[in-house]
């Protein structure tokens, strides 16, 4: 009985799918093939649809490659004039003279590096403090609203930060914080010259405010990925909470935290609008943090649309190219560091 139906179908069915259904229906004369079976057997294999779907998805994801490549090539081709005219010296020369066509990017590099590192100097300790507070100390009920607030901080557009900086931060710098710094730290030479409120320091402060949420939320993610057993292990040895945080949490996540800081650096290097609005836009290298400066991004924002002459435009695009390459390198290193820590991390504790 068990093998019977098989032999019955052998004769009629020399294969393709529909025939087989007929054959199996014949074995059971009770019912004709149900409408459902009939419908499903007529549906195609879906191979073509599947292949084209996969191809379209692949194409879209390859477009990410293409975008990066295209940015790279278009920037190189449009800055050829300046690349040929100045070569590597472009990055070590101080001149910026559109009238005589003499260009060098050093003042902008200086301004970018100075403001970014100063911003990190201000933001990193604060961001770490916030992250430690949120993951280790904060009462549960406060955690959600505070992280919501820091996320909001990240959602405020750059130009609004700039607006606020122009009308609130600049007067504060000019009238109270600036004179105070001059009085207390003037001897270092970093706070000299006339203080108009705009300049490197103001730009750094607004940058610090802007990159804080980035660093603190990433650091928080990294610290929560440290397994609780690490914390308990240290606490069980009789450590205080701070010792637990230091040896159990911070030590385990330091590579990730460095990565988060690098990501913050990447943001600071490329930040444009807010910096342009308060840095003073003056291509000079000055030790004093009160002095107006210029960054790579802000010189593009300010002069690009009024750049007359091909060499001028080409020099500005070369600055863009430099900014692109530097931020790519910084971001790549940062991502690798963050990945190294969060990948393979056990299921999120806390």
């Amino acid at each position: 009985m068990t093998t019977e139906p098989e032999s019955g179908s052998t004769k009629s069915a020399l294969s393709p799918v529909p025939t087989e259904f007929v054959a199996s229906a014949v074995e059971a004369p009770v019912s004709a093939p149900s409408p459902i079976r009939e419908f499903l057997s007529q549906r195609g294999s879906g191979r073509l649809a599947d292949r084209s779907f996969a191809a379209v998805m692949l194409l879209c994801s390859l477009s990410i490659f293409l975008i990066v490549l295209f940015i790279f090539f278009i920037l190189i081709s449009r800055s050829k004039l300046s690349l040929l005219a100045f070569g590597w010296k472009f990055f070590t020369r101080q001149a910026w003279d559109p009238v005589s066509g003499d260009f060098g990017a050093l003042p902008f590099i200086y301004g970018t590096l100075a403001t970014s590192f100063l911003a990190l100097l201000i933001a990193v300790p604060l961001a770490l403090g916030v992250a430690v507070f949120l993951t280790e100390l904060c009462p549960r009920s406060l955690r959600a609203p505070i992280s919501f607030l820091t996320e909001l901080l990240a959602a405020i557009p750059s130009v609004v930060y700039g607006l606020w900086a122009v009308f609130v931060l600049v007067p504060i710098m000019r009238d109270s914080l600036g004179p105070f710094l001059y009085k207390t730290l003037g001897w270092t030479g970093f706070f000299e010259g006339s203080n108009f409120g705009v300049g490197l320091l103001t730009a750094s402060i607004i940058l610090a405010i802007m990159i804080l949420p980035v660093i603190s939320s990433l650091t928080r993610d990294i610290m929560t990925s440290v397994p609780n057993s690490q914390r308990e292990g240290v606490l069980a040895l009789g450590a205080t909470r701070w010792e637990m945080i230091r040896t159990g949490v911070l030590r385990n996540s330091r590579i990730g935290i460095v990565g988060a800081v690098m990501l913050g650096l990447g943001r600071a290097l490329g930040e444009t609008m807010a910096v342009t609005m308060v840095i003073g836009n003056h291509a000079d290298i000055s030790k004093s943090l009160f002095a107006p400066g210029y960054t790579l991004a802000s010189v593009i924002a300010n002069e690009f649309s009024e750049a007359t002459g091909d060499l001028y435009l080409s020099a500005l695009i070369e600055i863009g190219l430099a900014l692109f390459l530097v931020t790519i390198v910084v971001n790549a290193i940062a991502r690798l560091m963050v990945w190294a820590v969060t990948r393979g991390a056990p299921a999120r504790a806390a």
Partner: protein
Amino acid sequence: MGVGIQVENLNAWYGTTHTLQDINLHIPANHATALIGPSGCGKSTFVRCLNRMHETNPIARATGVIKMGELDIYKDASPVEIRRRVGMVFQRPNPFPTMSIYDNVASGLKLNGFRNRRILDETVERSLKQAALWEEVKDDLKKKSGASLSGGQQQRMCIARALAVDPEVLLMDEPASALDPVSTSKIEDLIFQLKSQYTIVIVTHNMQQAARVAENTGFFLNGKMVEFDSTHKIFTNPKDKRTEDYITGRFG
């Protein structure tokens, strides 16, 4: 109505692990066939080869011939076509969480483009009745999410979902292993009733379950099929020493 399955020289690999070695067997139509064996013996891989789910894993591959009736499933049809004819019930209930009970049961038809309202309604009702779930859910078919049912109900819904496409073969990969004893016995009753209409292959680690529901039983060990015979014979008078050791519990 079910069809028989003929398996010849089936070999399967996961990466470099040879998980199935030269399996030969005939699964009769409209009967329940149980596959038993210790974990990792290849019985799950075997049923996953029967509806070509095995190859959804990129590192997996299989060779050999599997015939459903006269249809060579690795040669004559695409995986999608095979799976429409072979229903599968998984170890853990896996309802679609975003769909109502109705949509869950009808999903095999709806997602394949079936639009006839009347037949859909009939099919959902018939399948749920076959799965002995109709009375429990008929009042909120479209109101409740499939994920809101209890574990046993979810599994019966998954059986109904598999039955709704009117398959010829029903594969069950340890369908009761995640369920409580009451739900388990309901599922076993179901299998008992369904096997008159479908060819059922059930993987189980529970020997009593195999003895209760299946006419034939195969014993797998280390990727090989050690013995295949009527359930009665396997459990009372096995030919192979290893089978005897396993069913008498003398086996790690």
